Every structure is written in structure tokens, then in C-alpha cells.
């Protein structure tokens, strides 16, 4: 609960304030107190903050590894999945939910035995605004977001995320983020060095 402090001030300065520059001294004391504080700068390329669990970074695909939700177990007979490969079912729900649908390029083919196989899942991250709606829309908990936020590239074509990379992210970074407890910061030690101890209300 934030307490608001209400101050009553008259339009004109009092006699004492006007002659002793009291407002002026108050302002100067605030900056002097800041001068004596430790800087809170994170020197970015040298030291990096761990993003919180709910951070929405580069996308990943969770792989087919036996930890599927029931919604996928019901239809996995119709799909041609491989172990440690993407568990996408090409339902196009992510594209439907996306505010900029053209950034997705999803293609699936029918295998000779009648099952469905996803052959292409490209995301053009230059158009992505990282709202996370695609992740919410995914019915099989395949599409996810990791904590990767350093995504600068030299060519525009490099900004397109393909399925191999998403599988890798899903198996490493996204999995690590998923298994964390739901706290805003990944580790308190890291955060306390920067912003001090925070009291949690729950």
C-alpha cells in the first residue's frame, strides 16, 4: 500500500523562507544525499541483470520429450513427432492470435502414413512486438518465450527465427525459465545487489 503524503503550501513564500533560501537549501540537500549514495548503474556489457521469470524474450519451441500436456496426448497419434524435436501441431492458433499475423510462416505436410509433419515454422522477429499472445494461444504448450533479449543482427534475414533454433531455445533457455519458481526475479541475490531487499506482500 503506497502512502501519499499531502503537503499544504501557500502560493507565496514565507518571510523566513524567502530570506534564508529554505527551498533552495532543501533541493540542494536532496542532491547531496544522492551524491553520497552508491550508484545503482548496471554496467551493461560487463555485468548483466538476470531477467525475471515472466520476461518475454526470444521465442522457443518445447520439444517432444514425454512431458506433454493431455491436449497433445489426445492427438499425438495423428502427428509424426520425433524425439527431441518440436511438438508443434501446426494448428495456426499462434498466427490467428498474433496482431501481426504475417510474421509467421508455418508449413506442414502429410506423410505417406497419413500423419501430419510440421516442416517449417519461421518467425520474422523484426515484426514481432513480443506481446506473448501466441504463447497464450498455443493449445499444446509448444510455443514459449525465453529470457534471451540480446537479439541484434547484421542482416535482416538473420532476424528470422527458424524451427531448429526455436527447438534449441526450447530445450535450453526456455526450459530453464519454465522450471523456475514464479518470482519476479530469478535470484534474489542478484537483485539485492542492485536494488536492496524487497519485502514481499504474499
Amino acid at each position, binding site marked *: 500500500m503506497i502512502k501519499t503524503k499531502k503537503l499544504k503550501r501557500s502560493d507565496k513564500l514565507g518571510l523566513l523562507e524567502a530570506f534564508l533560501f529554505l527551498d533552495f537549501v532543501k533541493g*540542494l540537500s536532496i542532491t*547531496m544525499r544522492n551524491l553520497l549514495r552508491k*550508484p*545503482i548503474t548496471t*554496467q551493461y556489457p560487463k555485468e548483466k541483470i538476470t531477467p525475471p521469470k515472466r520476461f518475454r524474450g526470444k521465442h522457443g519451441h518445447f520439444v517432444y520429450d514425454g512431458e506433454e500436456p493431455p491436449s497433445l496426448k489426445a492427438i499425438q497419434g495423428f502427428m509424426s513427432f520425433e524425439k527431441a524435436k518440436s511438438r508443434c501441431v501446426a494448428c495456426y492458433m499462434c498466427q490467428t492470435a498474433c496482431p501481426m499475423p504475417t510474421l509467421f510462416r508455418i508449413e506442414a505436410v502429410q506423410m505417406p502414413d497419413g500423419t501430419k509433419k510440421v516442416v517449417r515454422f519461421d518467425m520474422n522477429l523484426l515484426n514481432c512486438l513480443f506481446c506473448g499472445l501466441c504463447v497464450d494461444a498455443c493449445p499444446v504448450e509448444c510455443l514459449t518465450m525465453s529470457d534471451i533479449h540480446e537479439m541484434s543482427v547484421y542482416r535482416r534475414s538473420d532476424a528470422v527465427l527458424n524451427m531448429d533454433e526455436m527447438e534449441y531455445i526450447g530445450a535450453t533457455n526456455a526450459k530453464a525459465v519454465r522450471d523456475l519458481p514464479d518470482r519476479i526475479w530469478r535470484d534474489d541475490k542478484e537483485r539485492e545487489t542492485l536494488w536492496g531487499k524487497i519485502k514481499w506482500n504474499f
Partner: protein
Amino acid sequence: MNDIIFYAIVIAVKILVVLGVTLGLGAYLTWYERKFAGHLQVRRGPTVVGPFGLLQPLADGIKLMTKAPILPRGIDTTLYYLAIMMALIPAVMLFAVVPFGPSFKFMGHEIKPIVADLNIAILYVFAMGSMAAYGTLFAGWASNSKYAFIGSLRKAALIVSYEVVLGFAALSVILLAGSMNVFDIVNAQIRSGIWYIVYQPVSFILFLFCMLAESGRVPFDIQEAEAELVTGYNVEYGGMKFGIFPLAEWYLNTLGLCVIASVLYLGGWSGPHIFGSFSGYIWLLAKSFGLLFFVIWVHWTLPRYQAKDVVEFAWKYLLPISIVNLVFTAFLVYFKV
């Protein structure tokens, strides 16, 4: 004949030392201000170039000098270049009448550590201050840009407000000392044993106000107002042509006026002899850097005035106060109270 050569060499050495010290200090004051401002805002300031970012002024200089020279269309070329000189030269010339310490004997001659020992030094300071304003005015006029022009118009409004008050504020000290020579003023303070800030606190505060206004520091930096005027009068300048303006106005001018203020009010180089023969220089430097610290501290604390408010404030309050103070001082001096 020998004497003339000796004094010529002495003056050349003085000029070289003063130029080197002031320009070097001016460059390093940028580092000092950035570091100080950073820590005031709980940041670190420059840290990357050299230990504690100490080589940052060098890196800045190289960056500014290697920039592509771009001249905006429709400028008045003569005034455009003249403005740079008009900003820099008076700011450096200000140091000609700055006494850095007491006079000493060297090879049988008495040498004063000052480039030009004028008997109207304080008047000269005011003159150079007024000349420096022309740099700002010319820059705004020659740039053919509305932001720069508004900036220089605001500077014009500022000049009419601070110049008169500055004169009246310093005049009361001149009355007390009975001289415009900086050596006489300091010696008078040393003789009486009391700094003039004790006799003239009101005048000191007025002088501080005018000092901030003349050097374009907050709360009177209305001519360069980053937020509204995209740095104002020097917006059309690039590279080192731009770098000269802050160097001259924010650093050299401020430093010069701080030294003059410590000479006028804080007793110049007077102080206990605890550093041997260098104590005079060290005391003067300590006092002027204390004032400079205060100026930069104020710069990074206060918001800025509106142009009309500065004029109103100066003419309605500061000028009457300074005149009353001056008349009061004149009475005291005349009747030898």
C-alpha cells in the same frame, strides 16, 4: 636593456602557463562535471576511457575534431566563425587579470603571478563578461535557425538583467577596498583580517546570482535550455566548433568568475601558511574550486527560470537590493563607521 628582456620572458612564461592551465583545466572540468553530475543522479559518470574515465576529455576532443565539418545553409559565414572566437577569446582573456597568488621575489625582481596587473581589473572583468555575450548573440544570429535565434534572444534578455546588478554588487566591495586592482583588494582584506563576505553577504549572494547568469548556468541557462531549444544558440554548430561554446561559457567563464569571486569576497590567497611557499596558490585554488563545486551542484539541482521571470526578478528585486546595499556601504565608508 637586460630588464626588458627579463620581463618579456617572464610575461611570455606567464601567458603560456595561464593558457595551458586554463585550457587544460577547462577540458578536465568537463570530466569533473560529468562525474559529479553522474553521482548526483546515482549514476557513475564516465568510467570506460582510462582509470575512472580520466582520459574522457581526450577522447571527447578527438571525437569532436574528427567530425565532418557541416555548414548549415543560409548562414552568415563571417559571423558564424566570429561567434566562436567571440565566445572563446573573452573567456580566456578573463584570466589575464586573475591573480593566482601573492607576489614573490625571483632573481632580484618582484614578480606578480598575474598576466596583466591592471588598476581597473574589475572593470576589465565586466568588460570581458559583456564581450563574451556577443559570442552567444552572433551564434544565434548567424546560424539561420529559429532555435538558435530564440536562444540568443533569451541571452540578450539575460544580459540586460544581470549586467547592472553585477556592477552594483561588485561596486560595494570596490568601495570597501578603495581600489579596482585585484592585488589591492586582496591586500586590503588581509590587512583588515576579515574577508569581505562578512561585510557584504548580500552583495556576495547577488554576485553569485549574476555569476550563474553570466556563465549560462542553471537556473539561468535559458539560452541553451536543452529541453525546449535543443541546446539553443549553438544548435547549428558541429564538431569542435560546437565544443568551443560549452568549454568557453560553462567551464572557462565559470572558473574565471569563481576565482574573481573568491578574490573579491573570500580573501583571495589569504589563509594560514600550512603548505609552505605554495600555500597562497593552494588557498586560492581551494576557494575557487569550492565555489565551482557549489555552482555545479546548483546546476544539477535546480530547474530553470523563464526568460521574463529572470528579467522581472533582476529588475524588481535584485537591482533595488543591490542599490540599497551600495548606498548603505557608501555611507559606512564615508563616515568611517
